[in-house]
């Protein structure tokens, strides 16, 4: 009979109490799975959507463009750069774009806003949120045509309809004010008023001509990667390979609003999980301590017949181990169908937030799903199990500390 077997049998002496304790472990696990899973999925979605709104996960930019953006700052040799970056492991898409400020005018009004000049052949709904959120018409088909796609709020402000004229004006590389007339070929609606009321998609080669850029010049080259968590490392790698004369920045530098919001939310989430974990641990500690104090005489007999305090400590700790393990297994069994449901169907919050929600001008997906990264699974399981073991430390210490003769006096 070894300690592990004895510990296993001991925890089932009071089945109901053990089950209740294991359930608290398993519900702690469930909470951690849901909380972390919604977070892992939500943050990834937010970052990916933010990346698809212009800068990508990693951005090649002119030096200091991030500090003071200007249309006279640009990168040259974008075609060659794109080809080289595409060959790097972990890169999903590389797209050159021109972004800047402009004035937009219709027959009745004019407003300031932002433009985003793109090559329709390079773009897709998967990597461009504006295309995904098109609600009317379609994207222009050529890079030098006169079609434009506007946000619905901007269309509303300027009194624009499909096919109507729009004049856009900006300053070229020589500091001259230049204008162009276009027709509305499509409209998008992200749900974020600041974006829908200010953003316009333009054909990239037409913008190049107007600005006086060469065919292989752009204000940025956006890199979309397979896993947004690796953006920092990827930026460093791309910088070392191809970053001469350019800034190569991860989204944490180019999308600080989104990054800050994620950081705050994550921190609060973890704080709450720690707090809940400590509460559950306290409950487990109480239960195991009760089980130890109830067996004071039994432990006294064990020590009297030769069991060392160290072995007694190990026995009680082994009981905590089993409780943690059973709780984890129960937690996995309970969490799995719930995880499956939320990972496939999701939690629909559209009814609760009818006007939509955004973070850092990035629309928030209101059908929230769940997804746990492998390292999150390891951290959750490890932490829950560790907290259970830690909860058993004090009772195990108490078990080994009472002198045998004191224990034997207990009736």
């Amino acid at each position, binding site marked *: 009979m070894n300690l592990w077997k*004895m510990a296993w049998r001991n925890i089932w002496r009071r089945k109901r109490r053990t089950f209740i304790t294991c359930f608290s472990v398993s519900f702690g696990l469930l909470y951690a799975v849901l909380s972390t899973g919604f977070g892992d999925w939500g943050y990834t979605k937010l970052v990916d959507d933010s990346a698809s709104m212009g800068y990508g996960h990693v951005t090649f930019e002119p030096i200091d463009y991030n500090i003071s953006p200007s249309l006279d700052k640009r990168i040259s040799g974008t075609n060659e750069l794109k080809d080289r970056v595409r060959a790097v492991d972990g890169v999903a898409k590389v797209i050159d774009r021109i972004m800047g400020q402009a004035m937009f005018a219709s027959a009745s009004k004019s407003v300031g806003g932002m433009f985003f000049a793109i090559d329709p052949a390079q773009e897709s709904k998967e990597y461009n949120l504006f295309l995904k959120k098109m609600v009317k018409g379609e994207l222009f088909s050529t890079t030098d045509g006169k079609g434009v796609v506007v946000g619905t709020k901007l269309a509303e402000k300027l009194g624009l309809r499909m096919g109507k004229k729009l004049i856009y004006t900006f300053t070229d590389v020589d500091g001259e004010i230049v204008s162009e007339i276009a027709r509305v070929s499509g409209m998008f609606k992200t749900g974020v008023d600041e974006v829908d009321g200010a953003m316009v998609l333009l054909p990239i080669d037409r913008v190049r001509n107007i600005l006086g850029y060469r065919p292989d010049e752009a204000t940025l080259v956006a890199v979309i990667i397979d896993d947004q968590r690796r953006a920092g490392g990827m930026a460093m790698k791309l910088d070392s390979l191809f970053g001469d004369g350019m800034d190569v920045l991860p989204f944490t530098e180019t999308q600080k609003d989104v990054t800050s919001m994620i950081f705050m939310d994550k921190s609060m989430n973890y704080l709450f999980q720690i707090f809940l974990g400590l509460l559950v641990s306290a409950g487990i500690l109480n239960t195991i301590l009760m089980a130890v104090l109830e067996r004071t*005489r039994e432990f006294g007999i064990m020590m009297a017949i*030769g069991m*060392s305090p160290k072995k007694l400590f190990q026995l009680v700790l082994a009981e905590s181990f089993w409780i943690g393990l059973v709780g984890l297994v129960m937690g996995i069994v309970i969490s799995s169908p719930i995880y499956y449901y939320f990972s496939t169907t999701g939690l629909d919050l559209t009814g609760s937030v009818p006007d939509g929600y955004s973070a850092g001008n990035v629309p928030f997906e209101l059908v929230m799903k769940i997804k746990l990264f492998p390292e999150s699974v390891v951290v959750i399981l490890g932490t829950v199990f560790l907290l259970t073991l830690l909860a058993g430390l004090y009772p195990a210490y108490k078990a080994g500390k009472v002198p045998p003769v004191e224990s034997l006096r207990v009736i």
Partner: protein
Amino acid sequence: MNLDGIIVKLDGVTKTYNEGQLEVTAVNNLSLELKKGEFTVICGPSGSGKTTILNMLGGLDLPSSGKLFLEGREIEKLSRSKLSEMRRDRIGFVFQAYNLMPVLTAYENAEFVLNLQGRSEEEKRVKVMKVLADVGLGGMEDRMPNELSGGQQQRVAIARAIVTEPAIVLADEPTANVDSATADSLLDVMEKLNKEEGVTFLFSTHDQRVMDRARRIIRIKDGKLDSDVRK
């Protein structure tokens, strides 16, 4: 130290306890020796100090003054871990009640101390089956304590106490919780082990049945030796 067959020696042992503001002397300057093979009872009224003497001999408690020897080793000088080892290897205990681990079978309870000693499976099996047979429990190895009568449980406790071939078995009121017939059968077992195997027994009791069987009776009164009679 020249043992001369002496298993246990108390030399001017005193034990005092603090109970609140009061200092209580449980054992008062007691000296005595026990030899191998003795079947001895320590008796006296409640509070006379007999359980305290057994606890000290078992290394569960230490004297306030005086010396205590087990097989020539001075007990009060041993560290906590050495005391544990001594109890594990050289002393068998039989208590009045709550002796057995409720989650272990009769076999596993008897085997318990051999496990602590790290014996091999084969050695454990041979020893445990023998002692269970010796105490009349052959065939009941797989029963749990709640499937055994009070007397059978005490037999398992006796088996556990002797399986390691200890220097001495300390039995504190072993017949207190059983009926007369069971008490007699338990005493038959212990007497047989004493006579045939030479196991040394020291009982703390005021059960006349035990005293009738003892070959030496040590009477304690107010923590002092009142009489020491060999039959």
